[in-house]
Structure formats: structure tokens, C-alpha cells
């Protein structure tokens, strides 16, 4: 099945110079199957219109496509369609929560929003392995409200160090934001344990699910998180789309950040009233074609099966990890048992940028740099790493292609 579905992705036939393309950068963004690409053509040729505002036939079809997307996502991650808010990317989703709490802390949103209010006596907890998207907004919130920002450190094996969990997440903690899966280490975090602690101290839980939703079965309902964010473009969907998922009562009382058309009930020159979620957070014309395309992607993922995808990628991860272990001078960051097919490594004596350039010359597309996780890199004493990340369309040959090229890197740069 997995060897067959590779043919659904036209870009994988690309040749880079004389080599076939081995695309191992899905952690940054995934490639798209033909059916997703075709949805754009179909949408713009047959049913493009502004949604929610019109009685005409095209507008009705566009609205249907737009709302059907929420159902697709609810089937994927649990909950009801009203719990699914469309955003431009996962970053916006996380910011909606952080900035919404900021606004609540400054008196917006009335009585209902008081539950979100933060002050100098409160704390916000994140982890040392967060993507900047799930760190910087919380820093800003801490600065704006005077709340304290704390974090859970990372062990040498690239896992969360939970030895001080009880003192870090304590009675002052009002928000606990952490990633489900590290975008650098591939580590899957013990969400249940973390949520348990949050519940014990009555803290909100915000889950960054960017690297879990595309790669494994995830139910936000079962995980019992309050808010979760992920991006469509990492899950076979288009660029320009992400999603915020939330518990309805929370979504409906969180003050909106972006305001304007299509999220209001009444507007006078003096003041405005806002709709309930999801529209509350969807000001202005929405990425409708993108939602239609993502709906196709979600169906595709469901057909393949996220459990199967997870297993497939575990196998690829094993190939990568075993192979790299045999290459002298290459060290993998982290060694968690529970992981996805994302592997970041350091090559002794060769900077990641040069490693990536060499791999590219051999047709292997990987990411180099800090992967938007500077603090985590600092934790491991490096400024940049090379990261290979798999997805359902990758095969063992892709991994071998990387391993062969990687084995040549140090001699090319005279680092042996």
C-alpha cells in the first residue's frame, strides 16, 4: 500500500541534478497528493465564492465545502465541527489563545472571559523543547500580564525531565502549553501525565499538535486538552491553513483577537458584539479553497489510516537511526523510545548548512538550522542541526539515499 501511494504525489518524481529526489523534510511541510492539488482546480473552476454571506448558488456550494471541512477535522481529531476554528497556520492558532488570554487579562470579553485573566501572581508553563510558535507568544503574554514564565527542562535523551513537574506546574499555574511531539527530536511526550498534573492544579492545557496530528492517531477529546493547534500544510493539506481546536465553552468565552467582518452579530459606530465560535475567530474572508483541499487531504489520511502511517514511519525511523549509528562522527540528538520519524543530528566538524548542501547535491532534501527551536539546540550545545523527517510517502530507499550521502559528508569537507 505505501509503495503504491507514493505515485499519488507528483512532486516525488522530481530529479535533483542527476539524483532522484529523496524528500525528507516533511516536518517542515508535507507534499500533496494529486487529489488535493486537483481540489484547487475543481474548487476554483466550479464553486468559488465568498462563504456565509450569500444566497446565490456558488456561495452555497462554497459554504458547504467550507463547513464540510470542519466535519472532516472533527472526525480526525475528535469533537464537533463547532470546535474547529480555521486559522492561517498553527502559529496563528496558538496566538489566538495567548493573545485572547492577554485581552481577557486586560478587561476584554466581560464576565465570561474573567476565567482567563492572568496577573503577576500566576504562572505559565512551557517546555524547553517547544517550537518558537509555542514559546514566543507565551513570553509575550508573560510580559504583558506580569505572569511568570516557567519551563520543564529536557533530559540528555531528549525527553521531558518530569522530576520537578509538581513544583514547576503548581497552584499558580494557569496555562500549561506543550508540544505533543518534538519537531526536532521526534519525541512523543506523555500527554496524559502532563494533562493530569494540569487538572490537579486547575490549569488550562494548550497542546501543540503540529507534529502529532499528521503522523499518528490523535483524539483531543481523549487527551482531554483544552486547546490544540495544528497546521494543514504538514498533513498533506495546502499552505495558508491551520486550525485551532478548543472546548466549546472556552472558545465561546475567549475574547477574539482579529476582529472585522463575518465574526460579529451587531455593529454600530460605537461598539460591536461577537458571534460564538468558530466564526468568532474567523474575521474576514477565509481560506475557503484551502479548506476544500484540506478536506480532501483528511479523507486521504483517513483512508490510509493514521495507525498504519505511524507504523510505517516507525520502520523508517529505525532504518535512519540504525544507519546513522554506523556513520562515524554523526550524533543523533535525543534517544527517546516513543518517537516519530523525525531525526536531527550533528556532524562533527561540519556545519549543518554544509551538510544540507551536500545532501541536496545528492538529491536528499533535509532541513538545516535551529528548526525554530533555538533553546532546545542550546540545551544540546549546538546552534544548528540537520534534520531528516519522514512521512507516509517515504520509503526505505529514501532513507538509504540519505545514509549513503551522509557517510560521504565528512570526507568531502575534510573533517575526518
Amino acid at each position, binding site marked *: 500500500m505505501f509503495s503504491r501511494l507514493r505515485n499519488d504525489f507528483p512532486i516525488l518524481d522530481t530529479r535533483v541534478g542527476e539524483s532522484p529526489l529523496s524528500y525528507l523534510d516533511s516536518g517542515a511541510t508535507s507534499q500533496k497528493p494529486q487529489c488535493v492539488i486537483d481540489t484547487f482546480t475543481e474548487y476554483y473552476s466550479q464553486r468559488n465564492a465568498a462563504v456565509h454571506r450569500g444566497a446565490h448558488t456558488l*456561495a452555497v456550494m462554497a459554504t458547504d465545502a467550507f463547513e464540510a471541512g470542519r466535519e472532516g477535522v472533527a472526525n480526525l481529531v475528535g469533537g464537533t465541527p463547532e470546535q474547529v476554528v480555521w486559522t492561517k497556520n498553527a502559529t496563528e492558532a496558538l496566538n489566538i489563545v495567548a493573545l485572547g488570554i492577554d485581552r481577557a487579562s486586560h478587561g476584554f470579553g466581560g464576565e465570561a472571559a474573567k476565567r482567563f485573566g492572568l496577573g503577576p501572581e500566576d504562572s505559565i508553563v512551557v517546555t524547553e523543547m517547544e517550537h518558537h510558535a509555542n514559546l514566543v507568544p507565551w513570553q509575550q503574554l508573560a510580559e504583558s500580564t506580569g505572569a511568570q514564565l516557567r519551563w520543564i527542562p529536557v533530559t540528555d535523551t531528549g525527553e521531558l525531565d518530569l522530576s520537578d513537574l509538581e513544583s514547576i506546574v503548581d497552584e499558580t499555574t494557569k496555562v500549561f502549553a506543550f508540544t505533543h511531539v518534538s519537531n526536532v527530536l521526534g519525541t512523543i511526550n506523555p500527554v496524559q501525565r502532563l494533562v493530569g498534573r494540569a487538572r490537579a492544579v486547575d490549569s488550562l492545557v494548550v497542546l501543540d499538535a503540529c507534529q502529532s496530528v499528521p503522523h499518528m492517531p490523535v483524539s483531543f477529546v481523549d487527551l482531554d486538552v483544552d486547546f490544540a493547534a495544528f497546521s494543514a500544510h504538514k498533513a498533506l493539506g495546502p499552505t495558508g491553513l491551520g486550525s485551532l481546536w478548543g472546548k466549546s465553552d472556552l472558545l465561546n468565552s475567549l475574547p477574539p483577537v482579529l476582529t472585522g467582518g463575518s465574526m460579529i452579530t451587531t455593529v454600530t459606530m460605537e461598539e460591536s458584539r461577537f458571534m460564538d465560535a468558530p466564526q468568532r475567530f474567523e474575521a474576514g474572508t477565509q481560506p475557503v479553497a484551502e479548506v476544500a483541499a484540506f478536506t480532501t487531504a483528511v479523507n486521504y489520511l483517513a483512508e490510509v489510516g493514521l495507525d498504519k502511517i505511524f507504523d510505517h514511519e516507525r520502520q523508517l525511523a529505525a532504518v535512519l537511526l540504525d544507519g546513522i549509528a554506523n556513520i562515524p562522527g554523526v550524533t543523533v540528538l535525543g534517544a527517546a523510545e516513543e518517537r516519530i520519524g523525525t531525526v536531527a543530528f550533528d556532524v562533527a566538524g561540519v556545519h549543518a548548512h554544509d551538510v544540507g548542501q551536500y545532501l541536496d547535491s545528492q538529491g536528499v532534501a533535509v532541513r538545516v538550522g535551529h528548526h525554530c527551536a533555538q533553546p532546545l539546540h542550546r540545551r544540546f550545545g549546538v546552534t544548528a542541526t540537520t534534520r531528516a523527517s519522514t512521512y507516509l510517502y517515504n520509503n526505505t530507499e529514501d532513507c538509504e539515499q540519505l545514509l549513503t550521502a551522509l557517510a560521504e559528508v565528512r570526507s568531502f569537507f575534510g573533517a575526518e
Partner: protein
Amino acid sequence: MSTQMQQLYQQVILDHSRSRIGNADLLGDAATGAHGSSHQINPTCGDEIELETELAGDGGLTVRWSGDGCSISMASASVLSELAGDTTVADMFVIEAKFHELMHSRGTLEGEEEILGDAAAFSGVSKFPARIKCALLSWVAFKDALNQAQTSLEE
């Protein structure tokens, strides 16, 4: 003219949209006894309705409303008021549920006239997703107001 349009704008609907039953001055704060009132708005088009319900001791009820909106929303409020005048609270809950079901049937259900009366004429609306909210606007207000009236009865 398409048949869909004829089904949407049945004569009953057009008639109700012009001679509106229950469309009357509201009592507002002057209301006494078991009553409730609700204001609903369709943010897409700005349609509004303010609707009051009064419960009589014998389970009968009166509906009064004032609103501004399209023929579907106004006709729907009128039909609702007519039905409410002819029946009991218990029956109205049945009707409300049936009507709700009909509206979300996407044209797969026929309106049962024995139960729904003139409201059965709205079956064509369910084929026009953008208009379902219009048809339901007064019913949402009704449910809300009736709940309030019942609560005030229990107190």
C-alpha cells in the same frame, strides 16, 4: 421559474409573509404572569426578531413578535404564532422538534401537514441551506422565550 423556487416560495409562505399573524406591539416590561421574551438576529443578513410568549394557566399560550427580515423569516414567525394560538405547550414542543428536523432534511422529508399545519409549506426551504436560518430564526426565539416562561411558572 424553477420548481425549486416554487417549492421555496409556496403561496402559503408568501401570504403569511404579507399578513403576519402575531406581529403586534410587544408588552416588554409591562408583561405580567408567566412570560418570556427573546431577541434573535441572523448576523449574515441583519434579520432580527423579538418574540414574547405568555403562558396561560390551562397550558395555552400566546405569541407576539416584532421583526424585520425576509419573507421566509417573517412567514415562519407568522405560522409559528398561528400554531401556538391553536395548541398546547406540550404539542408545540413536538411541532418545534418536527420543524427542526424538516429544516435539516435537505429536501429528503415531506412536511407532515397534520402536525405542522402551514409550517409544512417550508419543506422546500430545506433545499436552500442559506435560508434554513431564516426559517428557524423565530423558532429559536420561541424556544428561548418559552423556556423562560416555563421557568417563571416554576418559581
